[in-house]
């Protein structure tokens, strides 16, 4: 009985591994900001940083010293 139960558990688990392993992880798992950075390079979240950025988008104007303040 012991051997049958654990034998079936082994085969079932291997079957699950072979099938589930080939499926991509859920979006909940993949789209996270706090994922492990395996390649060791700094990961920058540009979308998140855009709101805090001090860069002002738009065309530059030339300052004219002759204009009185």
């Amino acid at each position, binding site marked *: 009985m*012991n*051997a049958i*139960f*654990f*034998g079936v*558990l*082994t085969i*079932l*688990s*291997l079957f*699950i*591994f*072979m099938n*589930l*392993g*080939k*499926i*991509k*992880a*859920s*979006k*909940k*798992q*993949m789209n*996270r900001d*706090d*994922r*492990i*950075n*395996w*390649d060791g*390079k700094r990961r920058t979240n540009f979308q998140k940083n855009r709101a805090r950025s001090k860069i002002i988008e738009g065309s530059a104007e030339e300052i004219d010293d002759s204009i009185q303040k």
Partner: protein
Amino acid sequence: MSKHSALNTFGRSGNPAFTRNFENTEAFSQSERMTLDGAVNKTAILLTLCFAGAFAGWNVPALAMPGLIIGTILAFVTIFRSPAKAGSTAPFYAAFQGMALGGITVFAEMQYPGIGIQAIGLTFGILASLLFCYKSGIIKPTENFRLMVFSATMGIAILYLVSFIMSFFGSGIGFIHSNGLFGIGFSVFVVGIASLNLVLDFDFIEDGAEKGLPQYMEWYGAFSLMVTLVWLYIEILRLLMKLRSR
């Protein structure tokens, strides 16, 4: 050709970090990149070799010690010398570790009949349930998670190393091998940490497939999964032996 001579000379960016990035994405064609399918298939190959080795070790238990020594050397070679050559070292690692596990299981079976199949069932049961938890997003590995698991794993490795060295002088750290409440608690902790290492392996494989790492990383991912499975099996076997000896 770009009309800017600097781009023609130095490429898109002069920064070596960015240059390396561009090389990584362009150097490998789609068929030469790591995939989930490939990593799972290679794990299946390694598991088959491990079972074949275990069959040999089961029938000739004297193969256990050479299998353990050669397997351990091959593991260090793969990790520290040539991850790119994991395709040639990992199959031998799996076969030799299988011999060691077969021999160890025979000795455990002589003392406690039926313990081997229990340990195998629990090992693969943990593998499947943690894979489900990882894929569904129930367990989310983060940098802190990795740090915690890595620290605990290193702590256990140092404890085992100290115990191993002390055994040459006729002493040891008794509680980690005892079948008392503390010894069983320690084994449960080690099984837990070994199981959490599986989650890190799943994340490493998933991340590599997503980023399109070179194909040899399929072997390396499968190898790292095998190392964790072998460790988990031995720890479960130890835990079951402690429980059965009470």
